[in-house]
Each structure stands twice: as C-alpha cells, then as structure tokens.
C-alpha cells in the first residue's frame, strides 16, 4: 500500500575514517532539492579506528575524535542547518564531547547560529568500575590479567535508542562513539516515524537500509568495478547513497544526479551481503534482521527498492570489542627488477630467514609473484613453481612481543642494500605497536546508553 506521507531521506557521506571528504556536498544538494524531511550520516568508525583514536586521546585529551571532522563538516554544515538536514555520525570516536565542542567552534567560525548538539555516551565500558563485568564477559581467556593490563579500550556496540531520543529532544547534530553502523540510520527513522521500539519488522527494514548506506560508495559502484565484467562510469566522482524510507521502513536506494557510479540490483546485492553471516539472523543491537527472503527490484536508473526484510526481537546482549597493545609488527620491503629478479628476491628471502631466526615464523611475500591470496604459514608460496618474474618486490613481516627483537627486521632488510643479492633497491620499513582484539557479550541492561545535550557556551 503506498504511503501518503513523504519519504524520509537519509544520505550517507562517509563509509569509513579516511573516506573521500568531498562526498557530502552532492548528497546535501540532492537532499535540499528533494525537499522533505532528511538526515545526513557519516560512518567513520571501523573496528580498529576507535582503538587508534583512544591512543590519540591519551596523548591529547581534547582529541581522539575523527581527525577529518573539519574537512567532512565544513563544506556542508551551513547548508544542513539552514535546510533542517540533521546530522548523525559516530565521528565522536573516543571523544564525542571533544567532537561536539569542535563542531560548536566550527559553527562560530562559519558565523552560524549555535546548533543543538547531542552526544551519545555509554559505549565506553573500559572504566575501572566496569572491569569486573568485563572480566566475567571475557571468561576463561588464557591471559585475562594480561588483557586487563594492556587494554587500550573496551567499547560496546550501542543501538539506535539514544540517537532517536536525542533527535526527538531536538538535536540538530548527534555525535556518537561506538554504535552499530546501521543504528545511525535506524535512529533517525525511529525519531521521524515514531515507531515502537519493538516494531521488529520496520526496524529490521531500516536496519538493512542503514546497512546499505553505511559503507558509502560501496553500494554505488565502489569496491565493485571490475573492467570487462562490472564496468562503472565515473569512479573518480562516485555519488554517495541516499535511502528513501517510507513509513513501513521499506527502502529505495538512489544517489545524487550528475554524480559518477551506479546503483543497480548487482551493486545492491553485493552490499546487502557484505559482512553478513547467517542472512536469516543479522544481529544488531536494535533487531535481529532476516534478509533470507529479501528481494531487490530495479525501479529505474540508479533506483533500487529492497523488499521482504523481516525482523525478530533484538538480542539480550551487546557486543563489546576489547583492544590491547600486544607486541610489535615489523615489516620491510625491497625490490628486484630485470633478468633473474625473482631468483634474486628468493635469495634475499632466504638470507632474511637465516638472519632473523629469532623472529620466526617470518611471513614472506613476493609481490608480483604471490603476495596476497596465500597464508602466513607460507604453504601457498611454497606451492608456486619458481618462475622468472622480472619485477619482484620482496616483503617480509613478523610479530614479536619484544620491541628490541622486532626492530631487527627493519634493520636486516635495510642491510640487504650492501649484504643482499645484486641490484636490490627501494627499501621501505615499518615498526608499529600491534593492537590485538577480542570480543565478548554483556547484558544490555548493564550498558546504559544515554544522550546529553551540550550546553551552548
């Protein structure tokens, strides 16, 4: 049955921290041109991003939010506020209040009236008072004391409730830390349509709309193009997606006119299944979405409708990611070219294996021969027949808990300049602390999510 109400439009202008920062303007222009209620979301918080942000905040308490916050918002903030396009994003990362203060300052710099900014909090469960809860949830982990000692952060994936509450309370901008990516879309839908919080079918549909939006250009031709098989025009100017939701939560996906990329049933199917395990039970904090009977229908150029998504009651627990500083990752590369390049690269690898026995097992890649599809153990590379590749870059990598041992790897790769096979060049090395991760589940009633409206200074 067609809905009599105008659709709710939600545009997505970023799919990860480091995404293109010029994506938002065409999306906002399209939302303004369409009129009607609309939101803009930025998804900028991959699994590791939050841990890295926490490390930044340790050295600078005012930072630890999305480093490109200014670049993302400056081009569109005035237009969004003037046209009542509200903004929802997890760009608060490890410091939502810091991000909110920066946005308020940006509004002042741009000469804008102060926006109402809400922050969503409660995802950080790494504080001392929550340690016992965390220990229980991590269970009989082999090295529980080590985990607690080296922990960088522990964050629960919050749902859409606090986002929706903040919007209902009148927020122009909602800044979150860790929330489930689709919740950035579900929050606006809950606030706009006033659905019950246990309206599982509608919430599941909005969740899958959010799932399609949350990686930005991945549904409009990005991460998709494959010349001769999946040709995409305008990759340099990909349009970012806009979802049109009706009151039932059904979603039609489109993108701004005049932008590059494409939306068709194939781009949508690929993104629908992206990072999904059991399609009948896609778990989020808001709902268990069931897309086993989903259908996609092409309504026209760059317009695809998703149907048949159902929902089941949300899980009783929330997922928590715990990051620890654990060991050092050492890497080094050197290139060989011309006649017998592959043989020289293989010889260099053998020299490093002998010199770096303390760092075994060493990962060895021959870039240009075999470097990606193989395993860390080297079974794949061993199975490759020796060839005569004439442009080969040797890469080695290893982990070690002891920094002084790990740093031998970059030194030994560098020493190949004078001690290795003939003609080696272009050494690059790296040494960085590794962030290990583990996941656990804690009861949702032990993680009270809440929003706070920032006071206007």
């Amino acid at each position, binding site marked *: 049955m067609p809905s009599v109400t105008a659709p709710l439009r939600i545009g997505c202008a970023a799919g990860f921290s480091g995404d293109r920062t010029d994506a938002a303007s065409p999306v906002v222009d399209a939302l303004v041109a369409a009129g009607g209620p609309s939101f803009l979301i930025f998804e900028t918080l991959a*699994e*590791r991003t939050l841990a890295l942000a926490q490390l930044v905040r340790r050295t600078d308490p005012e930072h630890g939010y999305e480093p490109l916050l200014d670049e993302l918002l400056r081009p569109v903030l005035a237009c969004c506020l003037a046209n009542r396009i509200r903004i929802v994003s997890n760009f608060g990362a490890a410091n939502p209040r810091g991000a909110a203060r920066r946005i308020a300052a940006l509004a002042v710099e741009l000469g804008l009236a102060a926006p109402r900014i809400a922050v969503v909090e409660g995802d950080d469960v790494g504080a001392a008072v929550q340690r016992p809860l965390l220990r229980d949830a991590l269970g009989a982990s082999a090295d529980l004391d080590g985990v607690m000692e080296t922990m960088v952060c522990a964050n629960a994936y919050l749902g859409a409730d606090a986002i929706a509450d903040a919007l209902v309370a009148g927020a122009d901008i909602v800044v979150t830390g860790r929330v489930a990516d689709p919740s950035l879309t579900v929050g606006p839908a809950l606030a706009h349509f006033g659905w019950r919080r246990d309206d599982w079918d509608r919430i599941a549909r909005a969740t899958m709309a959010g799932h399609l939006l949350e990686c930005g250009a991945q549904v409009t031709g990005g*991460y*998709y193009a*494959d010349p*001769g*098989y*999946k040709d995409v025009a305008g990759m340099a100017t990909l349009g970012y997606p806009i979802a049109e939701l009706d009151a039932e939560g059904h979603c039609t996906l489109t993108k701004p006119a005049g932008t590059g990329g494409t939306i068709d049933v*194939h781009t949508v*199917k*690929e*993104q*629908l*299944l*992206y*990072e*999904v*395990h*059991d*399609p*009948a039970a896609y778990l989020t904090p808001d709902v268990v979405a069931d*897309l*086993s*009977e*989903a*259908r*996609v229908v092409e309504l026209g150029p760059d317009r695809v409708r998703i149907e*048949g998504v159902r929902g089941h009651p949300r899980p009783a627990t929330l997922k928590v990611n715990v*990051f620890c500083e654990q060991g050092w*990752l050492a890497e080094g590369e050197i290139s060989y070219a011309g006649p017998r390049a592959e043989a020289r690269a293989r010889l260099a690898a053998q020299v490093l294996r002998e010199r770096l026995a303390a760092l075994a097992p060493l*990962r060895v*890649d021959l870039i240009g021969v*075999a*470097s*990606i*599809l*193989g*395993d*860390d*153990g080297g*079974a*794949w590379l061993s*199975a*490759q*027949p020796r060839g005569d590749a004439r442009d080969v870059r040797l*890469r080695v*990598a*290893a*982990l070690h808990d002891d920094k002084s041992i790990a740093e031998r790897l970059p030194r030994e790769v560098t020493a190949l300049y004078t001690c290795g096979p003939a003609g080696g060049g272009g050494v690059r090395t790296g040494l960085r602390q*590794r*962030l*290990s*991760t583990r*996941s656990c589940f804690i009861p949702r009633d032990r993680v009270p999510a809440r929003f706070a409206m920032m006071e206007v200074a």
Partner: protein
Amino acid sequence: MTSRTVPLYRAAHGRTGDKGNRSNISVIAWHPALWPILVEQVSEARVAGQFAHRRPSRVTRYLLPNLQAMNFVLDDVLDGGVNDALNLDSHGKALAFLLLDLPITVPETLRQHLAGADATDLLPAEPWRLA
C-alpha cells in the same frame, strides 16, 4: 547436451567481507537462469578445497534464492584477522577473487547468460591452486 568449463566469474560476481578471523564471500548469479548451476556446483566442499591452504575450520553456505545469491562463511581463514595477520591484505578483501576462479561447467544452452568475453572458454592456468 554439450557444455563448457568456465571460471565462476563468468557466471557470478561476489564480494568479501570480514569480521574478526572470519570471512564471508557472496556469490551472486549474473542471471537467474544460472542460479541452479551455482547451487549444484559451488558446494561447501568445493569452496573448502579452493581455500585449503587457508585451513578453514568450517565452511558454511547460505542460500538466498530470491536474490539468486549464496553467502559463504569461512571460519578461521584470516590468520587471526585484521589485527593479527601478517598478510598485507589482513582483511582478506581479495579472497572473493580466489573463489571466483573456481571452475564450473555450464551447458551451451545457458551460454548467452555468461558475463565476459568468449575467448576465456577454456580455463586459464591456475598457478595458485595447490597440487
């Protein structure tokens, strides 16, 4: 009925996603007429064989007939995942293309639904398959 052997990418496309040490790879038919072939031939066992060197502890196939798509979930194939693997591609983002190299047999009657050029009717050499 005559048939031809082609790489899976002629009949389907797909994408890799990752969570922790688990990879999921979608396989989506280019045309609904090709869907039964995929269901019949792209089995859990064959996919496990294609990824043998990654030592999956489990391979699970989920079917989505309305989408003419299947979703493979491969447990423990990422050498620990994004934070632990030494692979340049610690997410395993390239792995869909290893699966899409799987040879399948397609009847001539469905030939017009295959993607790509006809010149690749014979399988290319597969240097990365383990003996």
